[in-house]
């Protein structure tokens, strides 16, 4: 078993400032009604919002080193951004481009990192969004430099300018880059339209080889995704708790604020307990990633096992405790439920993470 590390699980002043800036921008450009409109196909708010985050705030290259054009921050700061994106169910490719693709690219010397960091190019790692870092990696076939095949349910592809493609070679998985204009990207009706997936079809397109032996880089990208998805899930759960507490304080039934009914109070106390615990798990994963800790895989497994389920539980309680209004399209609760549930299926899912964790900590299934 790897040794757990003694890391700071709180927020630094710098992180608090970053949070404030991100939250302010989201309050201005990420209105819940605009987010709901994504479900009806209106994606117009995505571009200005992403421009604000990526370019104006310079977050596209947050974790890219300064010498490659990034902000040189760590996963801890990226986690804070993701908490805020979760709180706002923001429809932006930060996790897919600025975390997963950026981490994967850090092993290359490609200049693509620089344009990613500048907010000029959005990049997506072309794998099904349900792929865990420890799964067998699906891949695309290559013949004389031409890529052929289909990758389904890819997150971030709709927004991407460049696709990073795991390609099967005799020596293992290589990584190619392809302009998204040269492939067929078919958006699919997704359970969570705030992270709309797409099927990507390669029909003999030429790709640029980024890395020959790319399995480690790809898995590292996915693992970073797991570590920080937990913070997005934390943000979702926090919004659900806060919105529900505010609602039950205000909503009156039987002559009383419903938040005074003890059964609801106790359930919200349990949600609070879960959210606080999720914060510890998510912060530990982010800090482990930032510190390149040996314990990162355990931290990821714990965070994904816990935060995935916790975000769903918080969103389900939010819908229920809002009563009928939580079932309506008008109220934003449904946006969080869909995001939480889709996030639970992403990057492996809690059951797969627990099975992997069992191996890591020596609790064999049989």
């Amino acid at each position, binding site marked *: 078993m790897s040794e757990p590390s003694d890391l700071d699980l709180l927020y630094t002043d710098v992180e608090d400032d970053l949070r404030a800036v991100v939250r302010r921008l989201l309050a201005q450009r990420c209105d819940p009604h605009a987010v709901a409109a994504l479900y009806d196909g209106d994606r117009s708010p995505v571009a200005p919002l992403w421009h604000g985050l990526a370019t104006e705030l310079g977050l596209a290259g947050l974790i890219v080193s300064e010498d490659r054009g990034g902000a040189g921050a760590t996963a801890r700061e990226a986690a804070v951004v993701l908490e805020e994106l979760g709180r706002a169910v923001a429809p932006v490719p930060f996790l897919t481009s600025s975390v997963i693709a950026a981490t994967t690219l850090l092993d290359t010397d490609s200049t693509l990192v620089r344009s990613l960091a500048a907010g000029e190019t959005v990049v997506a790692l072309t794998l099904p969004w*349900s792929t865990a870092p420890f799964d067998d990696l699906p891949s695309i076939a290559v013949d004389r430099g031409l890529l052929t095949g289909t990758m389904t349910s890819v997150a971030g592809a709709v927004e991407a300018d460049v696709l990073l493609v795991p390609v099967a070679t005799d020596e293992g998985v290589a990584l190619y880059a392809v302009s998204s204009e040269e492939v067929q990207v078919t958006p699919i009706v997704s359970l*969570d339209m705030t992270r709309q*997936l797409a099927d990507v079809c390669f029909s003999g397109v030429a790709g640029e080889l980024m890395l020959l032996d790319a399995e480690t880089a790809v898995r590292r990208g996915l693992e970073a995704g797991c570590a920080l998805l937990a913070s997005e899930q934390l943000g979702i759960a926090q919004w659900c708790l806060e919105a529900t507490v505010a609602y039950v304080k205000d909503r*009156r039934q039987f002559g009383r604020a419903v938040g005074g009914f003890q059964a609801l109070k106790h359930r919200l106390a349990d949600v609070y307990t879960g959210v606080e615990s999720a914060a510890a798990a998510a912060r530990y994963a982010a800090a482990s990633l930032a510190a390149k800790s040996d314990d990162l895989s355990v931290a990821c497994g714990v965070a994904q096992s816990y935060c995935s389920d916790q975000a769903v539980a918080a969103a389900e309680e939010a819908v229920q405790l809002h009563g*009928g209004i939580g079932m309506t399209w008008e109220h934003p609760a449904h946006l969080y439920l869909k995001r939480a*549930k889709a996030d639970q299926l992403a990057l492996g899912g809690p059951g797969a993470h627990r099975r992997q964790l069992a191996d890591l900590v020596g609790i064999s299934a049989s």
Partner: protein
Amino acid sequence: MSPVVTRPRHRSSAADDRPTDLAELCRRAADFLDDHDGQDSATFLRARFDAGLAWVGYPEGCGGWGLPLAWQSEVDRIFEEAGSPSNRPEVNDIGLGMAAPTILTFGTDEQKRRFLRPLWTGEEIWCQLFSEPGAGSDLANVSTRASRDGDEWRVTGQKVWTSRAHNAQFAILLARTDADVPKHQGMTYFLCDMTDPGIDVRPLRQITGEAEFNEVFLTDVRIPDSRRLGAVGDGWKIATATLANERVHIGGQGAARETGMIGVVAATWRRCPDRRAPDLHDRLMELWVDAEVSRLSGMRLQQKSTHGRPGPEGAAMKLSFARTNQRLTGLELEILGEDGLRYSDWTLVRPEEVELTGRDAGYRYLRAKGNSIEGGTSEVLRNIISERVLGLPSEPRVDKVSPWKELAK
């Protein structure tokens, strides 16, 4: 019970006499079928109503003969097997299930004569205007106001969660007629014409993308006093009677094993061997057991209530139903994994019928969230069980004695 309504005599044959046993009733139905070809659906259904072969348990003149309720299914079977026109009960569930028994119990002779026949034939669809944004679980808190104006009432307010409002001709309506008395005492029950120009029906879109329900805005809607049901101020009592008919449908009474959501999810499991994992398997089996136990509980409840209404024990069934459905549908998405990330269609549609197990796994997951809200939230059901079954003290209430207008909103 003597006839309360002067029944139009379309036929002069055996319809004069109340059938004395089930065999006689079946013969009457067979005779009716011999005499009516059913080419015109409405004509056929009206005649069936007038022959007392609609609701056999209703009194003479109201579509029946005051016969045992258990005989109804026999008559329905005969008409169904003959392929005769249907009154399509699936699109008038509120009319048949809630409005009709209430009108029968509380209506005037004139009201029964006017409304029951077109209601049963399906010529007039009904909806229910009870719930309001500010009156959810606390249904007695309605703030839609009805003010007397000569022989009429003028009604203004907002109703919500109204299924079928967009194609209903009439509504049962609960409105506040006196704000100076405690809230349960100041309501009156009306039969409201949905074609009134003061009525505005808007689809209420829900979490699934669909709009099963509507919001209904009432602005100075006029209702003749003759369409008041029961006395002024009796609205709560009558509405309670209406709702007592609601919470009966849940549960697998008499259903086969693996009926409902468990059947769908078990099928998904069997179809997707590559998605199987030990944790998912154990959770599925736990829920399989829960579903089977619910089925057995429904069977037991039905056996208990053969000679009466299911009591508040039905609340326990509904609690289990909601919980099991919600867990099953959540699990199904986890089983599906990548496929669970896809949804069929978010387009706003107004479905005529709702199938909880229909569409895709994402829809089922989202729709099941309503199971613990609609027809009594799980929280209200737990109150009912703890107070009415277990006899635990009720919540401290301040809102039962103060005048309605003085309660904080």
